[in-house]
């Protein structure tokens, strides 16, 4: 596929790694935010290739992993309501709520459908006027344009039986929260290429200035990440704290203006609860007042469901980059992809699943 093979070229990967080794005078701690990038780093062995030169710290960028238990419990509750169909991405089916998951809800008779896009859910609503169709709108800024468009179309076409259960999180406020935490020692950041493709990277320039940290907007292939690490190491060695864009084939400083306009039309920024990180000020989206009738939490009584996080899963520590998945006592023992205790083991983008699939059982020190 276009520009994938080129960026997976082994010789290029080796040469870039050599350049990084030559440039670095110490071991730098670099956080990649996005779960897709975590998987590339582990799958392609970049973490091992740069052992002692760059220590990757895995960030909270897996939308399934940061969705609070409470939202999962609410989704299960909605799905079990008569005459309701809950439509969701496949990743969400096995994420454990406080005592069940959507897959179990389906086996108990709930109508839960896996869809590829919120527009598929909207089509279900048009087809089944006698049912309420609720789409579980989980995600970072990348899925916001799709979710925004589904609500806008529902309002334009007057489809009354469609709503969203929204759990939308934003990357820059989470980075800010991580940097304000004195326990975290992150020298620089790989910014998520597709989030920036949608939103641009002005906000990261502000973070770079305020916290004196360099950022590189990067793609998702091994050579993309290595080039980003090379740029980051150069900036760190030179004490330069700005934003550079490695992913110029997709991301621009201003992002996708059409998508941003639609997001602004439908959503507004609000405080948001994250699994493991707690509530972060202005770190998520909610539907604007004009679109409240499409909010499943307005349509169904769900306020009574509030769930504390489970004590046995250290996902919070993992998502803040303070603990490696392999350092969690349950990792690979009580917690495996077949019987996951926490979301980072379920999701294809979760750090625990990446460590398990690519057999990183040994503890690396942070």
């Amino acid at each position: 596929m276009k520009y994938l093979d080129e960026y997976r070229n082994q010789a290029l990967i080796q040469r870039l790694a050599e350049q990084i080794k030559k440039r670095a005078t110490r071991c730098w701690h670099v956080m990649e935010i996005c779960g897709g990038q975590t998987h590339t780093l582990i799958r392609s062995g970049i973490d091992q290739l740069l052992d002692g030169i760059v220590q990757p710290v895995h960030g909270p960028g897996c939308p399934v992993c940061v969705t609070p238990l409470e939202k999962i419990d609410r989704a299960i509750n909605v799905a079990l309501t008569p005459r309701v169909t809950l439509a969701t991405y496949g990743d969400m089916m096995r994420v454990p709520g406080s005592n069940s998951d959507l897959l179990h809800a389906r086996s108990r008779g709930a109508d839960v459908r896996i869809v590829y896009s919120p527009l598929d859910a909207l089509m279900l609503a048009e087809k089944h006027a006698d049912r309420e169709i609720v789409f579980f709108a989980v995600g970072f800024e990348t899925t916001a344009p799709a979710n925004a468009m589904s609500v806008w179309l529902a309002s334009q076409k007057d489809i009354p039986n469609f709503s969203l259960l929204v759990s939308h999180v934003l990357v820059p406020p989470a980075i800010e929260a991580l940097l304000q935490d004195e326990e975290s020692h992150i020298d620089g950041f790989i910014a998520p290429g597709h989030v920036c493709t949608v939103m641009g990277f002005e906000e990261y320039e502000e973070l770079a200035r305020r916290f004196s940290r360099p950022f590189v907007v990067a793609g998702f292939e091994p050579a993309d990440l290595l080039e980003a690490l090379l740029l980051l190491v150069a900036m760190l060695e030179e004490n330069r704290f700005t934003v550079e864009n490695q992913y110029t084939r997709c991301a621009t400083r201003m992002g996708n203006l059409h998508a941003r306009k639609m997001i602004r039309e439908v959503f507004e920024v609000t405080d948001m609860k994250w699994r493991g990180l707690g509530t972060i000020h202005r770190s998520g989206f909610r539907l604007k007042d004009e679109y409240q009738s499409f909010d499943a939490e307005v349509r169904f009584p769900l306020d009574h469901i509030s769930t504390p996080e489970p004590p046995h899963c250290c996902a919070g520590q993992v998502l803040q980059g303070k603990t490696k998945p392999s350092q969690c006592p349950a990792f690979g023992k009580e917690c495996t992809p077949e019987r996951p205790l926490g979301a980072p083991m379920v999701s294809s983008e979760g750090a625990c699943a990446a460590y398990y699939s690519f057999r990183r059982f040994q503890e690396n020190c942070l």
Partner: protein
Amino acid sequence: MCLGVPGEVLNVQRDPGSGLARGEVRFGGIVKEVNLSYTPEVQPGDYVVVHVGFSISRLNEAEAKKALRYLNQIGALSEQLPDEPPSPE
């Protein structure tokens, strides 16, 4: 769900009323209908990055080629500057 996939636009249909655009996009062997409203400038033959049924960006070929040229230069540079002096022959 966050993973965007590049695919080739096969055709584009625009709805003159709403201004919305959609079309078929080929990903390897699979063809899918994709909403192209956020990249209204795309033409058949362009590559787009698709997330959950929406294209979020046209793949900028000029930038991609420039970046690859640069990456290959890095490679060439490292070959010209070996770490150790070549052994005398």
